[in-house]
């Protein structure tokens, strides 16, 4: 087939060169933008050099590099790394590819899947990140590892948030359908809860079994104390479950700053046979 192809009547390279010349000016000149391509807000400062804190890593790594793919509803492995989601989906959360390994295990970069994927360590599933390169230099990965070694704290702005005490995220989300068994449930708060209130204010019920209370251990996520982790004594089997966090009175869940949850908060999810 190919051997009978007619000789080219024009030179495709020349045609493509013209095409390139025609379209070559399409790249933006970056006027008025920061390093992430966002408009510079008057009075704001340019992103500082990479340091071992979450905001710096978000501004210098996750936002400009990772969100090319890890953003929105189609983010690979459900991992969204934009500023609104990244911390909650990274720290203390099992990786989708190797669920026995946390994406970020506070204090332990070696056992953090994020670092393993960036370093192309043995044991990862799939490709090294960032997908297709350019891969991060070791000095950059070392800064991320240092943030994890230091405890993987959230950004200073969020940790000092003045937002009212409220639930900000749940896993599973409200009205979710998840496969059995479910071994861990997580609830994120706008402020760090006072641990002494946890056992009395957080309840798990199997509402498909006459609202039977399910025994559960309640604690704060390692390295992420604004997130409360519920561990049922036995993994949850098929059924519909409701989590209730008590609010509104003197026994309400209260933050370390002394602010109580204003009203009861509850969410449900259904566990089914995979």
């Amino acid at each position, binding site marked *: 087939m190919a051997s009978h192809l007619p000789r080219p009547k024009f030179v495709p390279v020349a045609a493509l060169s013209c095409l390139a010349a025609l379209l070559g000016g399409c790249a933006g000149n970056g006027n008025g933008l920061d390093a992430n391509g966002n408009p510079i807000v008057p009075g704001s400062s340019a992103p500082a050099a990479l340091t071992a804190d979450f905001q710096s890593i978000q501004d210098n790594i996750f936002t400009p590099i990772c969100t090319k793919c890890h953003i929105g*509803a189609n983010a690979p492995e459900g991992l969204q790394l934009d500023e609104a989601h990244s911390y909650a989906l990274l720290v203390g959360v099992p990786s989708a590819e190797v669920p026995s390994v946390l994406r970020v295990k506070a204090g332990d970069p070696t056992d953090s899947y994020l670092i393993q994927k960036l370093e192309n360590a043995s044991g990862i599933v799939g490709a090294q990140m960032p997908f297709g390169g350019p891969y991060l230099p070791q000095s950059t990965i070392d800064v991320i590892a240092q943030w994890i070694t230091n405890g993987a704290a959230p950004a200073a702005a969020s940790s000092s948030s003045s937002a009212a005490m409220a639930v900000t995220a749940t896993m599973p989300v409200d009205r*979710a359908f998840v496969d059995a068994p479910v071994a861990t449930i997580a609830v994120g708060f706008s402020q760090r809860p006072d641990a002494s209130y946890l056992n009395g204010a957080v309840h798990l019920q199997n509402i498909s079994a006459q609202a039977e209370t399910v025994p559960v251990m309640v604690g704060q996520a390692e390295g992420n104390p604004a997130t409360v982790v519920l561990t049922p004594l036995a993994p949850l089997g098929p059924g519909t479950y409701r989590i209730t966090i008590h609010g509104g009175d003197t026994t309400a869940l209260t933050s370390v700053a002394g602010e109580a949850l204003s009203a009861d908060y509850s969410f449900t999810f259904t566990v089914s046979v995979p």
Partner: protein
Amino acid sequence: MSKRWMRPALCWLLVSLGFAASCGYAEPYIAVQTGLKCTQCHVNPTGGGLRGPYGDVFAQTLMPASKIDTGPDLWTGDVSKFFRIGGDLRTEALATEVPHSKTVSQFMLEQVRVYLEAQVIPERLIVYVDEQVAPGGALNREAYALYWSGNHDWYVKAGQMYLPFGWRLQDQTAFVRQASGINMTTPDQGVEFGWLRGHWDAQLDVTNGTAGGTVTDSRKEFTSQVVYVESIWRTGVAANYNDKLGGSRSTYGLFAGLRTGPVSWLGEADVIDDKSLGFDQGRMLATLVEANWLITRGNNLKLTSEYLDPNRDVHSNGETRWSVVYELTPIQFAQIRAGVRYYDGIPQSDTQNTRLYFIELHGFF
């Protein structure tokens, strides 16, 4: 529609259409070059992965510059009457230049994939698996059962699969594949209904919409594609809607292919509106124009020009990427690819101004 992004968008779209079905780690330009539908060479009706008997014969006879004589025996992937196998291996030497950073060069095993097909009921019921076995641990890409109608004009597929949307390019880092979020790193689980009649191909997929992540709600992702195929040109439209609690994501694509003598052209333009992002940051535009010049048998020069507007509401933030790749297929089942990819973005971002140089060995059967 703001005038600022209209000009580059129109310019790219017009070029795409003026010169103008998607096929996995496939080279859809081969489909345009030959005037065939993807299903002619691949087991998967939407292309990619395991080649069918015709695809295997094509790879041994019409694709390479020369053929090592194997007598009358040709590889067809048949292990038995009911089982077929295939595979792909890609390994490369890669150099990466990023401004203000040291150049990094490395050898890298990109991927080894194994394909299995069981013709449980010959020509009617197929069980198919596409497993990436390296690097790292095994990773299931596709695994589905596919039922064909008696005359192969419709099918139903159920399991885990790549979604049909635009050109299924070999390069998964192409802007149109990254920005759309629909590529061969993001298979999803669900069902696909396909309709293939005459010049027309159409698919409708209903999937979890988690791109391989944990399912956390009962909302679903809908993907549809319609392609019209003629011998020297083809065009298609695709749409995707992913309904999520945090906000929906809509993607629309227009793509086309045209053969002019020895050159096969591909064009695609995708518009993405992601309402799961704050401050209306989710409106993106990605385009691609690619020319494949078949110089002589087994020698293909690929020139690609891409554009990405990551936020239509922001001025001066466009990115382009230019690629020149030479593909030599000296013998059957072996290909050497050498190329450069030149990223051009805003000067403030080093990674948007990267240069990649690579030589890749691609073995396939």
